[in-house]
């Protein structure tokens, strides 16, 4: 029997087996869920401190509860960031390396950056559990972004041939919409319910999209052959990515209007076949450290290749920064690490994978940018070696990711920031 025949045969699987496979999964062991109840029992007087410990119960709570951090400090006029962390079914965030030094990042933040405040932005288009956006996507703006994106590659957009993606009906052309809704008013009313989230234009050689969160994408079909020596594949060496990035910067980055486009070759983790992989991004390194951090997290251009080393994707992330909540005082990296040592962190790593006395292997400051995040706010991400129970064929180590909100705890209550995805 061939693999294709087997694939066909699996299509005749018993309904009972399909039913069993679709039954609700047993809840994964996620820290903050496990300790949600326990946290209420901890003797802590301030809401900020309670929020931290809801995520993970320290084995030995520090004498002052927050390792020297005062959760009752004055908050001034800044709004308290409210919400609830949401758990759910998910994998855990972990990377494989022989040594953490193999992890490559272009993050401009460093431990000596001496930043005391960072802005927090509201995601007004937050994606809700109902499957709709908190407010309807701005179709006019998305169209304008599509038009600008098309101009980058010398194309125009046919307004009548657009496809509207929404969470209820999938992809709809104008003709589909007319067919589904008896009147234009009903069609407009439907779109305004908030399930419409992305606009797509299909051109002869490209597919372009613009979404509600200000991201745009160009997919090339057929993909573009890069000059010999400037191409890149999924598991090329780091140096090859550097060479490709230099070419891509010269060839494409002028179109994106960045003052100082700076390449980031990120990744370096290993898959189960012992292959490393990297990704190429660019961000604007102009401005002071805060501006660079914001650009790095909110505004980047990613290039991706296909299986035959040809360019098939340019992904522009340009998250909306127009709804600023305020500049919030942040923890120092030392304070974040102290919280980590005390077990006050967010993680998706199952409890049974956590060894005693975890230590920081790498710390960085990032913004979490998920569509379900109510606020775009900074976090410290700490990588620490963990001990998963799966057997490896190679001698790599697993490093789990642990998040500590960088905004000082007196400004936080139950912050709804987790969208069950990873940055």
């Amino acid at each position, binding site marked *: 029997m061939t693999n294709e025949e087997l694939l066909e045969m699996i299509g005749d699987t018993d309904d009972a*087996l*399909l039913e069993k496979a679709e039954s609700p999964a047993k809840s994964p062991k996620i820290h903050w869920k496990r300790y949600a109840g326990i946290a209420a029992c901890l003797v802590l007087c301030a809401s900020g401190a309670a929020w931290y410990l809801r995520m993970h119960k320290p084995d030995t709570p520090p004498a002052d509860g927050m390792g020297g951090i005062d959760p009752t400090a004055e908050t001034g006029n800044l709004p308290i960031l409210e919400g609830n962390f949401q758990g759910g079914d998910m994998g855990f965030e972990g990377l494989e390396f022989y040594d953490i030094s193999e992890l490559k990042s272009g993050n401009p933040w460093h431990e000596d950056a001496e930043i005391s405040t960072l802005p927090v932005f509201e995601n007004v288009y937050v994606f809700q559990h109902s499957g709709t956006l908190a407010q309807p996507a701005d179709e006019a703006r998305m169209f304008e972004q599509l038009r600008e994106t098309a101009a980058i590659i010398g194309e125009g957009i046919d307004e009548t041939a657009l496809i509207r993606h929404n969470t209820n009906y*999938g992809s709809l052309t104008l003709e589909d919409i007319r067919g589904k809704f008896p009147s234009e008013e009903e069609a407009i009313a439907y779109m305004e319910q908030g399930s419409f989230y992305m606009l797509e234009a299909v051109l002869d050689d490209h597919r372009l999209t613009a979404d509600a969160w200000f991201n745009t994408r160009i997919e090339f079909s057929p993909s573009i052959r890069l000059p010999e020596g400037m191409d890149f594949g999924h598991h090329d060496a780091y140096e090859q990515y550097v060479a490709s990035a230099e070419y891509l910067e010269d060839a494409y980055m002028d179109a994106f209007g960045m003052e100082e486009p700076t390449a980031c070759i990120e990744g370096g983790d290993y898959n189960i076949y012992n292959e490393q992989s990297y990704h190429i991004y660019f961000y604007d390194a102009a401005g002071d450290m805060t501006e660079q951090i914001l650009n790095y997290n909110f505004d980047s251009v990613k290039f991706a290749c296909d*299986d035959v080393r040809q360019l098939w994707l340019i992904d522009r992330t340009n998250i909306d920064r127009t709804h600023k909540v305020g500049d919030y005082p942040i923890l120092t990296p030392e304070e974040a690490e102290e919280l980590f040592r005390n077990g006050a962190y967010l993680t998706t790593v199952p409890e049974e994978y956590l060894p005693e006395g975890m230590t920081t292997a790498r710390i960085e400051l990032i913004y979490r940018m998920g569509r379900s995040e109510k606020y775009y706010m900074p976090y410290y991400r700490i990588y620490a070696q963990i001990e998963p129970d799966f057997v490896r064929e190679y001698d790599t180590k697993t490093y789990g990711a642990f998040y500590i909100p960088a905004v000082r705890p007196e400004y936080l209550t139950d912050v709804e920031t987790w969208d069950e995805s990873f940055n």
Partner: protein
Amino acid sequence: MEDEQIINLYWQREEAAIAESSRKYGTYCHAVADSILHSAEDAEECVNDTWLRAWHAMPPERPNALRFFFAKITRNLSLTRWRKTHADKRGGGQLPLILEELRECTDRTADVESQVDYRAMLESLHRFLHALPERELRLFLGRYFYAKELSDLAGTCGISAKNASVILCRVRKRLHDHFVKEGFGNDK
């Protein structure tokens, strides 16, 4: 509308059967097709064809689980469409990977369609799947029936994508050994 009522509509040759099927299972079937085809347009056509196939199949068929009855039709139509549209194009989506993975389970000397007793081998496959732990079954069918990406599957099982990949690798090896043991392949 209850499944039984929808089936009755098909049996009564009421065209409302299609509208009700679409209303209840359209999104689900679209997801099944889209996992295979990675094209909203192609998926939409396969889903529409699904209702037509169901119209021709009922009567005489009276499925016990309408959801899976539709899913199997959609899956078959999507696979057929994928073969037609992707035969000469670069590999997109999950199917090329999935086929490569399934090669590990089959008789590795079989490059052409082989003459096996389909019914007997399907029963053998069922014996194997029924004996799998729930997590392994969820991963196996999620990957090879629904053509889902590893990261999505890992999410539903609370494990990392790499862990899911390792588990599936072991299940494929076990399935290969199971087939060999039951006389449906050789140990090469």
